[in-house]
């Protein structure tokens, strides 16, 4: 059996459709099967990545119609890298949550697992599809699952968060559809490579209107200010593995969609400045909101938005090194923020307190988790020798190449805000007065493995980033080389 | 010969406009539902007529589906008005 990118989608789909049946036969099918599927995705990620790096690109056609006539799945070093990253993160998050979900009653686990798995599959779909409308469909898959998962817990305010998410998500799909429509009328195609090829012929009025619609729609998905009202609520209310998934998977897919469309489809001036400005505003506002948060998960949520802002800035700077930094940051963000949500969840679980007070003195009850949280906090601030340092470093270097000294200073000043609240939390964990002395809910083995894996990644990449920089470099190059992308896909026409 | 069809279409159009006006005016949900009901019946007739005009049999299928959906829609609305959903 030849492994091809469509497996990324088909395997989870088969599982999703089969789980309702399987769980009639085997009670725990809903918990186990997604793990198998997600692990399968991890394996094919590596197989495919190897292939991609050898061949330069995998272009899989669906239903036998060559692009631009049919839908195609494209695995470049860029999309392959992101897909692999999401797969790995998806599996780790599953592993983390494997036992956690025992606390959920009966049949609900089934829903949760299906949605969670499909959210990851949908995000991969967003990334690997080469077709604009198909991307919309996958964005909707991610959206639907995300709304549902946000509202998953009924004793919280999940429904409220879910509704806000849905409200903005629906506006996003509206404008996405409008943009796709405008593009379709002008180019007569939905294949992104061909659109890219034909874009120069499109009149600038329609092009820019479409661009604005794209920016709004994908800005909502990518959590760009002021379109991100949904994000803090959703991150806060979702079950913790899902919050981690939002940070590690969904926001990555959102940023990908934005970047893919801006970099491949449009050749409009001003986009880069727009990204820099909006990215910076996003980061600034998010960190400002985060620093005065009283609620742990909400704080982490704002922090996530801030990170995405920085990613957008990096993409806005646009040089190969900047894109490299952006990708590296995406990876780091995925890993570190997941770890923060995972560990944070145990603090909440143990203290029964969603506010920051819940962290107080946690090092006594959960020494290992506390250390991991602190590690992740340091890493996300960008302290060396943790992985987070390198991404920030590269972005700054890239910005300096464009002589953007104020941007650099701005980023670093915002980092100081970030530093304040993360270090405050670490201080709380180790030194604030602890009140409760009852038995600790220690993390289960699977969760420990998942979290330790992430921590190990943070340290190893921090100390020796060269393990990963080669891949990221190729990924960045693949994103920026538009002509190659177009030629590779349409060449076989 | 087609002139009669056109006259019919005009009549139907005016009719649907009137029904639409009732839909806008209300005043109660039931009034709007009646207007919708009438519109859907007019729609069935209109679809069949258009099918004849364009000589396309496929419109008949549409009319049939439209009839079913319109009817069930009204029943649902009725149940809603009754506060029985």
């Amino acid at each position, binding site marked *: 059996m030849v492994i091809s990118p469509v497996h990324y989608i088909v395997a989870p789909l088969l599982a999703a459709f089969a789980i309702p049946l399987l769980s009639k036969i085997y009670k725990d099918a809903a918990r186990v099967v997604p793990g198998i599927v997600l692990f399968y995705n991890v394996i094919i990620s590596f197989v495919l990545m190897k292939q991609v790096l050898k061949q330069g690109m995998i272009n899989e056609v669906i239903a036998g119609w060559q692009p631009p006539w049919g839908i195609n799945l494209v695995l470049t070093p860029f999309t392959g890298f992101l897909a692999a990253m999401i797969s790995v993160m998806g599996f780790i998050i599953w592993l983390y949550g494997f036992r956690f979900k025992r606390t959920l009653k009966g049949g609900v686990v089934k829903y949760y697992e299906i949605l969670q798995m499909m959210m990851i599959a949908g995000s991969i779909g967003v990334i690997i599809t080469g077709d604009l*409308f198909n991307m919309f*469909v996958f964005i*909707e898959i991610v*959206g*639907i699952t995300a*709304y*549902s998962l946000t*509202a998953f817990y*009924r004793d919280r*305010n*999940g*429904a*409220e*968060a*879910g*509704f*806000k998410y*849905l*409200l903005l*998500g*629906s*506006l996003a*799909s*509206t404008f996405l*559809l*409008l943009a*796709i*429509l405008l593009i*379709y*009328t002008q180019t007569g195609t*939905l294949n992104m490579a061909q659109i890219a090829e034909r874009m120069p012929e499109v009149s600038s009025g329609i092009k820019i209107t479409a661009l604005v619609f794209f920016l709004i729609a994908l800005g909502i998905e990518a959590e760009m200010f002021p379109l991100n009202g949904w994000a*803090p*609520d959703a991150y*806060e*209310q979702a079950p913790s593995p899902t919050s981690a998934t939002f940070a590690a998977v969904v926001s990555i897919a959102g940023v990908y969609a934005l970047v893919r469309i801006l970099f491949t489809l449009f050749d409009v001036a001003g986009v880069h400045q727009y990204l820099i400005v909006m990215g910076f505003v996003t980061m600034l506002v998010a960190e400002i*909101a985060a620093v*005065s948060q009283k609620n742990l998960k*909400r704080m982490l949520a704002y922090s996530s938005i801030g990170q995405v802002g920085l990613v957008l800035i990096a993409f806005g700077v646009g040089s190969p090194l900047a894109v490299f930094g952006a990708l590296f940051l995406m990876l780091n963000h995925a890993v570190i923020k997941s770890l923060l949500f995972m560990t944070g969840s145990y603090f909440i679980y143990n203290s029964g307190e969603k506010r920051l007070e819940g962290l107080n003195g946690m090092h006594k009850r959960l020494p290992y988790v506390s250390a991991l949280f602190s590690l992740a906090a340091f890493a996300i601030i960008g302290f060396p020798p943790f992985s987070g340092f390198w991404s920030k470093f590269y972005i700054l270097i890239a910005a300096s190449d464009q002589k953007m000294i104020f941007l650099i200073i701005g980023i670093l000043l915002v980092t100081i805000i970030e530093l304040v609240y993360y270090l405050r939390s670490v201080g709380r964990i180790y030194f604030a007065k602890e009140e409760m002395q009852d038995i600790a809910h220690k993390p289960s083995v699977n969760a420990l493995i998942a979290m330790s894996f992430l921590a190990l990644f943070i340290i190893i990449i921090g100390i020796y980033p060269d393990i990963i920089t080669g891949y990221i470099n190729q990924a960045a190059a693949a994103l920026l080389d538009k002509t190659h992308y177009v030629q590779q896909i349409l060449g076989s026409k | 010969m*087609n002139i009669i069809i056109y006259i019919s279409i005009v009549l139907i159009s005016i009719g649907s406009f009137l029904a639409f006006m009732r839909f806008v005016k209300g005043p109660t949900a039931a009034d709007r539902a009646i207007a919708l009901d009438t519109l859907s019946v007019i729609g069935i007739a209109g679809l069949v007529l258009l099918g004849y005009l*364009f*000589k*396309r*049999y*496929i419109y008949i299928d549409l009319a049939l589906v439209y009839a079913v959906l319109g009817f069930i829609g009204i029943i649902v609305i009725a149940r809603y008005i009754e506060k029985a959903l």
Partner: protein
Amino acid sequence: MNEFNELFIKYKDLITLAVYGTAIMLIIIGLYAVLLKKHLVKIVIGLSIIDAGVHLLFVAVGYIQTGTAPIFSPGYENAADKMVDPVPQALVLTAIVIGFAVTALALSLVIRLYKHHHTANIEQIKSLKW
């Protein structure tokens, strides 16, 4: 059929205005509801109306003058040149289903919210803020 063609050419602007105008008006009305109505259900209805407007735009854009449905049914086997663009229609079919799915989900959330907050007024449902 020629009469139609003539009619279409004669009133082209008017027809354009009617079709696009309706679609854009639907979007505007829907947005109005989304932004100003306080009742959750009305907001959801607003979203559906926006959807309807967008879908209408899709279908309208695919239309060609005096075109017919792109179905090669008996008698129309070779009438490709008279057929409207099938692509927007196919796309809109997908979009409609997705829109339906989202609406269903939205309504379920509204039900949850109503049970939780005992109100459907969006201004009173903001326990998550800042």
